[in-house]
């Protein structure tokens, strides 16, 4: 094939498709979130524009474009304009790296062997946009939101990064395709890495500033946090960045812990080989499976938002530094020891991965203990009912 075609035109086409798909998904997410929140909160949600309110997906961007683009008089102009754009860029690039379907067709770039590292490097730059925006707005609420987000996102970057070390120890690869392949040949990483998966989900919620970790915006405390002074399309860019990162993180969770595009384990089931035999139809089905799993994660984001109250800042930091990071470190330690001490063994004709089974059991115990610890009442119920003496 013409090298121009291979290295420029074809990736550009793929990138355009991914870009448009992400845009559409973000716009749709807005509607989905509002409808779902309506469902959770026993109300209707937007249902006026078009059938089931679907027109809202188009109406919202139009509204954002037509609103007054307001810039505070004493804002730091360059940083103020840069703020909303910065979180958007990495999320678009990251989309090119994620394998949506079985190879060779369904990733924008072909298999970078440090894919995971690159993704983490890129997504962690998103915080700059928020800090810049918060600082440049010349508003105390914005500044506090920006400072909070700086501390929060840097803190949660650590457990997020540590939680995937266990996965890497199992799969022995930073290549996302390789990680998915490993999972369909052995087991989804969520089982032997249950604790890591738990940490990853908590940390990715915090990374995205979603409830219960939405302290940088905390609408009841900081008005709107770092984007208090942003209006119209600049505000929409922040939302776009946030939702894109939500989708990226969901994709990562699916890829790292839930078997990516495949629906099989231990080499059995709807695996890459089966899909590749079916040609492009198999590829499409694989992508469909991936997107479905990703949507489940997006649903989980919204579910969390409808369920939990918000943390306080110091409690959030405590959770990150005093609980998640030690837990992630312990996870790495235990995974390493178990994998060394109990390698896979041959029982008759079958290979049984003793280490991974042990890890699964340990993970379940740890999660159960954590939940008990979390919900143990600290103080007895103190309500009394009594009569006032009738004097």
């Amino acid at each position: 094939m013409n090298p121009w075609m291979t290295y420029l035109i074809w990736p550009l086409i793929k990138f355009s498709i991914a870009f448009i798909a992400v845009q559409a998904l973000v716009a749709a997410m807005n509607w989905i979130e509002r409808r779902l929140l309506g469902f959770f909160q026993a109300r209707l949600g937007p249902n006026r524009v078009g059938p089931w309110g679907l027109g809202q997906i188009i109406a919202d961007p139009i509204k954002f474009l037509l609103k007054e683009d307001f810039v505070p008089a004493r804002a730091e102009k360059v940083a103020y304009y840069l703020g909303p754009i910065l979180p958007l860029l990495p999320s678009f690039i990251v989309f090119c790296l994620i394998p949506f379907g079985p190879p060779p067709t369904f990733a924008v770039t072909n298999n970078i062997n440090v894919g995971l590292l690159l993704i983490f490097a890129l997504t962690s730059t998103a915080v700059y946009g928020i800090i810049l925006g918060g600082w440049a707005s010349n508003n105390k609420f914005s500044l506090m939101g920006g400072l909070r987000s700086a501390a929060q996102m840097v803190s949660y970057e650590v457990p997020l990064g540590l939680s995937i070390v266990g996965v890497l120890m199992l799969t022995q690869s930073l290549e996302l395709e390789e990680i998915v392949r490993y999972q369909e040949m052995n087991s989804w990483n969520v089982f032997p890495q249950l604790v890591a998966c738990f940490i990853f989900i908590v940390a990715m919620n915090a990374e995205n500033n979603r409830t219960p970790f939405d302290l940088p915006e905390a609408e009841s405390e900081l008005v709107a946090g770092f984007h208090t002074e942003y209006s119209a399309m600049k505000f929409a860019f922040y939302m776009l960045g946030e939702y894109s990162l939500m989708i990226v993180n969901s994709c990562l969770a699916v890829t790292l812990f839930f078997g990516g595009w495949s629906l099989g384990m231990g080499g059995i089931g709807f695996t890459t080989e089966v899909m590749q035999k079916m040609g492009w139809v198999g590829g499409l089905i694989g992508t469909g499976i991936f997107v479905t799993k990703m949507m489940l994660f997006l649903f989980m984001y919204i579910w969390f938002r409808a369920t939990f109250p918000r943390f306080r800042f110091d409690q959030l930091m405590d959770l990150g530094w005093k609980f998640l990071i030690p837990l992630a470190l312990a996870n790495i330690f235990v995974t390493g020891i178990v994998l060394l001490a109990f390698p896979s063994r041959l029982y008759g004709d079958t290979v049984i991965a003793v280490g991974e089974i042990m890890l699964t059991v340990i993970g379940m115990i740890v999660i159960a203990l954590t939940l008990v610890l979390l919900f143990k009442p600290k103080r007895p119920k103190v309500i009394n009912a009594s009569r006032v003496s009738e004097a």
Partner: protein
Amino acid sequence: MSTLTRFSAIPYTGPAPTNRNPYVPADVATIDARGAEIAARAGVALEQETGLDLPAFIVAKEAIVPTLRALRDHTEFQFDLPLDLFGVDYPGREQRFDVVYQLYSVKNNERIRLKVRVGETESVPTSVDVYRAFDWFEREVFDMYGVRFEGHPNLRRILTHEMFQGHALRKDYDPAQRWLLSEQGVAKLKPKIDPRFEVEHSDFERVTLNLGPSHPAMHGTLRCAVTLEGETIVGADQEIGYLHRCFEKMSETHTYQQVIPFTDRLNYCSAVINNVGYCMTVEKLLGVAAPERAQHVRLMLSEFYRIADHIVCIGTNLVDLGALTNFWYLFQPREEIIALAESCSGARLLPTYLRIGGLAVDVPADFLSNSQRIVNMLPKYIDEVEALVMKNRIFRDRTEGVGAITKEDALNFGFTGPCLRAAGVPFDVRKASPYLGYETYDWDVPYAEGGDTYARFLVRFEEMRQSIRILQQAIDRGLPSGPVIVDNPYVALPPKEKVYNEMESLIYHFKLIMHGIQPPVGEAYFQVEGGNGEVGFYIVSDGTKNPYRVRVRPPCFPIFEAYGHMIMGQTIPDAIATLGSLNIIAGELDH
């Protein structure tokens, strides 16, 4: 600052009724005997004023501070809860102002009234050192009457604008004046740093942040300026009055019946309870009692609106904490409650359903069955929301120990209602001095220890359950038959058929519309348990169709006064969580 328009109101110049005796409460002998007892044993000189509805005393202005201190610290009487401090203006008198103190003793369950008479140029020593609650109350009296309080730490206007001219509640103040006031020359709010956090030198700069008046968590129009070190609050100062609508002054230019819609708008989350409080105060002055059927409906609607009030408080507080779902979820039963009021009166949030002497119209035929339906559906919602939040670790961490106030401080700040009960004082007006027949129902006063936000949640959840208990009993008893308004042509309008067919009734109708209800000359105070504390009305009647003075005791007022004290040393999220749990209703706070 300039006067925009100036036109004068047309006063009523018709004849004053002459056939009226002064108001004398029914059990005046016992009250006066108790008053004499207190005067004899208090250990300070008290000049008794007899014939009033509470043991009342006239105190010289020099003696007021020692008197208050003696009454507070008296081992037997223990008047530890400052209820109210307000002024009344009698321009004809030599010492034209009455500064009235009302105190309550939790131990003995009794109230007293102290009056200090001052002239226009005189000042009263401040009693802030005795009761911290009186800080704002004294500022209000200064704002409204121009009475100065010597030694007050911060004697500024509180409800009106800083540049406002004159004192609005003085009788010689023309209420038809219009002012255009600007912010020029108004000093910026500078929170006083708490002594605990005063440092001589710090490497960190402190930031003053205005929470409100337009801030998502400052329900309505509250404002609190806080000084922050990091996110820790080291100084706080609340400013109120953004929703001041001169309720008390307006009442003086309207007839007794016309005041009812204004009372709706005090605590607009539980409007019916305010109606009950106001109507029963006027009824007390008139010496009439609403018929049994009306009383039964009043009680049921009061309890329904108490539940609605708690629902709004819990829902919005949880929104402040980031738990959005409960708000909308709880609004379903609230919607049903409001629809019930709508079926009675035609209006929803502010039904204005009560009239002096009874109700505006009879309840619809399906009132009881609808009530039963709501009572059946309520526990499910309350239980589900309680299960969702009260055991949630995040919620517990956010609320336990946050915004705590001790029992002693709560009393000294004049707390009443759920906030006081959450601090461990089981004082509820419905138990302490029952009205509407609350004493005949089987229910309990919930209270909790700790006085923190979590305790306030506990108390409110349990109170809703107790209200449901009362409602279930009320439904089981059924509505008593009979009229819904007293059969007294001087109080209630005759029925329309009679007006069209009988000369007498037509005349009564005309007289009541034109000349209004004219209670006997005198003063009366009556209190009900509102959604967030004791709602009391103090009415002075001069025998004419307009009240001479209407004073409302807003429970939010002293509670919001303590807010700065409660959030000191905590963080902004704590301050927001605390504010929501106090249930400050700006309509009531600012009169």
